[in-house]
């Protein structure tokens, strides 16, 4: 009786082990097996992708007496653009560290303007008025974001709670894995640095806007083929991305993204200007919204 029970137990254990082994093998092999059934089609679309021209290499090649002095010029240009990249990285890092040095409700408002239709119900120019609950690790656990048109009419409102984005206007929901990091630069720094790594030239200079001293970073990315991006009126040859830091506060005050079109004209894809970035008490109406909002 006991032997029979033990045998059954051993059989069940062996079967469970076999099952787990097969599942692990399946998971390990699945992409390869899937590829057998669904061959990769990346080659069909990769050829359409625009690539950045390595302007750094071009600039070095076009210098007079390039052959004689190329090494010096190359190192000078590299050093200049690498300095700008390092400075940009450190200024964004400092800005984020200073901003997220405390926890509580952060009120962050910016205005976005654009020359190009966005194809959605948001107006082309709008105010994005956000309240973000920052925890001790610098991540957002709750938020209320309101989008207003130029006349300050509410267009859409979104809340974030229980790891879910909920658009209260459209009832659209998106789930996340956990609290997220608020990107005060909208991720634009990464794009600028990627462009610089591909050979686009990143510059920085000190300028003045409304009598305020600013540190300005700009990069121009030239594409190897004219490409239609989104709803642009015509193909884009190049893009110019600019970020302005307020020297007094170290905060990003403006980010602009401009298309340089094939006919030689420019189109503003967006310009974002920060108007408020401060710690404050969440307005009572939003407290209620987070409690009740579904």
């Amino acid at each position, binding site marked *: 009786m006991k032997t029979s029970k033990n045998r059954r137990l051993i059989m069940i254990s062996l079967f469970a082990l076999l099952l787990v082994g097969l599942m692990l093998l399946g998971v390990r092999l699945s992409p390869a097996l899937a590829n057998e059934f669904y061959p990769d089609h990346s080659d069909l679309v990769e050829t359409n992708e625009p690539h950045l021209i390595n302007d750094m290499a071009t600039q070095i090649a076009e210098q007079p007496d390039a052959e004689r002095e190329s090494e010096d010029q190359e190192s000078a240009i590299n050093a200049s653009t690498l300095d700008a990249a390092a400075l940009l990285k450190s200024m964004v890092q400092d800005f984020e560290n200073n901003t997220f040095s405390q926890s509580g409700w952060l009120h962050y408002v910016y205005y*976005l303007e654009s020359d190009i239709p966005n194809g959605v119900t948001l107006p082309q120019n709008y105010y994005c008025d956000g309240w973000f609950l920052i925890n001790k690790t610098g991540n957002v656990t709750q938020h209320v*974001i309101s989008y207003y048109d130029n006349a300050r009419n509410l267009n859409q409102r979104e809340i*974030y709670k229980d790891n879910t*984005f909920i658009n209260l206007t459209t009832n659209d929901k998106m789930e996340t894995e956990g609290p997220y990091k608020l990107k005060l630069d909208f991720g634009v720094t990464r794009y600028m640095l990627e462009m610089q790594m591909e050979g686009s030239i990143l510059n920085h200079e000190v300028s003045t806007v409304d009598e305020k001293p600013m540190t300005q970073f700009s990069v121009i990315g030239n594409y190897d083929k004219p490409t239609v991006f989104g709803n642009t009126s015509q193909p884009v040859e190049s893009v110019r991305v600019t970020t302005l830091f307020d020297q007094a506060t170290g905060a990003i005050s403006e980010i602009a*993204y401009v298309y340089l079109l094939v006919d030689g004209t420019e189109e503003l894809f967006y310009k974002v200007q920060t108007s408020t970035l401060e710690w404050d008490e969440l307005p009572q109406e939003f407290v209620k919204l987070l409690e009740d909002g579904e």
Partner: protein
Amino acid sequence: MKKGIRKVSLLSILLITIAAITVTTVFASLGTWSYHAFAMNISGTSDGISGKMVNDPVGAYWAANILTYVDNPPISLSLGWNWFSGTEKCGATAIQNVQGDPYYAYTQQRAATIFLTAQPCGTTRYGLSSGKHIVTAGGTNYYDTWTQTEVIP
């Protein structure tokens, strides 16, 4: 004897299930195609397959891709998509939408791409590739409408 047969049957069912999951599940992620087989055994044994991909090449743009093809074996049929769009969401709010051109022609496979420059977004950015695929065989239209969503870093 009966017990043995039962065990073998159970084992076979489990193995078939595991094999099926293994083969049909395609672990789609940013930069990889996700596929649906939506028209089975058309014009003989061929299948109409739809594909979508969201990828994030170097720079400030991302791409929504669409694909319709016929395989097992590959043959030419009238295929394409009735509509195709790329949408960008910041959290649960749509901040950009771009419509691609429809396509319908006699061919074995066809793909298209919409390039979108990322709009400012401080929270989580999602890229969506949406579209309604079509394959025609024996006078019947087969459709497949779905959306592939990925987080754009």
